[in-house]
C-alpha cells in the first residue's frame, strides 16, 4: 500500500505479512493494557474455584453464563459519568480466613491503589452464604453482624460494628450486606487490607463459617467504583 505524503494514517511501508501481524498483536496488547490502566498483564498465581467464580460473575450481573461455562456479556448496569468506571468482585484471601466453626468468620480483602489514583465507591456489598439451622424446629431468623477489624488486629479484638441484619434462613442461601461507606473510608485511608468479621451465631455455632477452602460458596465483595481524576482539577487551576 503506497501511502500519500503527509497523511499519518494512510498506510505503512509494505511489511512481511507475519511481521505485520506480530506488530499488530503487540499494538493490541499495549492498547488493552493502557486502557485498563495496567503496566503489565496480571500474573495469575492462585486460582479461584470455578464454581465460586461463576457464582460471583452471575451476581455481578455481567451477563448470562453459557452451558460450557463461558460468559455471554450483556450490557450490565451502566456506570454513570466517564469511562473510568469499574465493577469489582474481590474474593477474601483464604490464607487468612479461618475455616470451620470459629465464633466469627474473619475475611481479608486486598486492595492495591495506584499512586495518584483515588477511587470513588458508587456501591459496594458483601456477599455471605448462610447455612440453615440443623434444627428444623428452630426459628428461621438468624441475627448476623459484620464488623470492621483494625488492620493487623486479632480476630475478635478492637473491631467496629458495620451492619447488623436479621437473616431469613429457612434454607441455606446467599445474603448481601451493604458496605459502601466502609469501603470508601478504607480506600480513602490508603490502606491495603480490609479485614471484616462476620458473625451468624446460633448457640455458639457460626452458620456463616466456611466449610472448606474449596467451597463454591466463598464470600466475596462486589463494588461499583469510578476513578477520580484529581490531576485534571489541578490542571484547570493552572490554566
Amino acid at each position: 500500500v503506497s501511502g500519500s505524503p503527509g497523511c499519518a494514517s494512510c498506510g505503512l511501508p509494505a511489511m512481511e505479512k507475519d511481521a505485520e501481524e506480530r506488530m499488530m498483536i503487540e499494538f493490541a496488547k499495549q492498547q488493552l493494557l493502557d486502557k485498563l490502566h495496567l503496566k503489565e498483564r496480571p500474573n495469575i498465581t492462585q486460582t479461584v474455584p470455578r464454581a465460586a467464580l461463576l457464582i460471583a460473575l452471575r451476581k455481578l450481573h455481567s451477563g448470562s453464563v453459557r452451558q460450557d461455562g463461558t460468559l455471554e456479556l450483556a450490557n450490565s448496569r451502566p456506570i454513570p459519568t466517564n469511562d473510568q468506571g469499574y465493577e469489582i468482585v474481590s474474593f477474601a484471601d483464604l490464607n487468612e480466613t479461618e475455616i470451620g466453626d470459629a465464633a466469627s468468620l474473619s475475611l481479608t480483602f486486598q486492595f492495591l491503589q495506584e499512586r495518584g489514583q483515588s477511587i470513588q465507591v458508587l456501591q459496594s456489598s458483601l456477599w455471605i452464604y448462610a447455612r440453615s439451622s440443623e434444627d428444623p424446629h428452630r426459628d428461621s431468623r438468624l441475627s448476623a453482624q459484620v464488623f470492621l477489624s483494625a488492620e493487623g488486629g486479632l480476630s475478635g479484638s478492637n473491631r467496629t460494628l458495620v451492619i447488623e441484619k436479621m437473616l431469613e434462613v429457612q434454607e441455606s442461601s446467599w445474603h448481601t450486606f451493604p458496605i459502601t461507606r466502609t469501603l470508601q473510608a478504607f480506600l480513602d485511608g490508603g490502606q491495603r487490607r480490609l479485614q471484616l468479621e462476620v458473625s451468624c451465631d446460633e448457640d455458639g455455632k457460626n452458620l456463616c463459617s466456611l466449610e472448606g477452602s474449596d467451597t463454591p460458596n466463598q464470600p466475596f465483595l462486589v463494588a461499583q467504583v469510578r476513578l477520580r481524576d484529581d490531576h485534571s482539577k489541578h490542571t484547570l487551576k493552572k490554566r
Partner: protein
Amino acid sequence: SLRCGDDVSVCCKRDFYIKFKDIQWHDWIIAPEGYHMNYCMGQCPQHLAGSPGIASSFHATVFSQLKVNGINTAASSCCVPTERRPLSMVYFNSQHSIVKTDVPDMIVESCGCT
C-alpha cells in the same frame, strides 16, 4: 464503509481479530474471548473527501468549504474511523479480584475519509 480485501486501494476497514488464547492471555481475561482491533487503511483521493458519513466532523466541514470555494489547499484527506463501539471486559487484576469495565471506543465499526 468498505471492508478491505486483499488489494487495498480506497479507504476501507481492515478486520483484525486477536484470540486471547492464542496470545496466552485467556488466563487473566475471563471475557470476551478475543478483541476485534479493526483499523482503517487505504487512499482518500480528493473526490472522496468527506465521504462517507462524517460530514458532521469539523474537519470535513472546513475541508468541503475550502473545496467549494475552489481553494486548493494541497491538504490531503485521511482514512479514519467513523464509528467505534466500546469493549466490555471481565478480567482478573493483580490482586486476583474480578474487574468488569466497558472500555469506550475500542472497536472500529466503520471507516471514512475526512
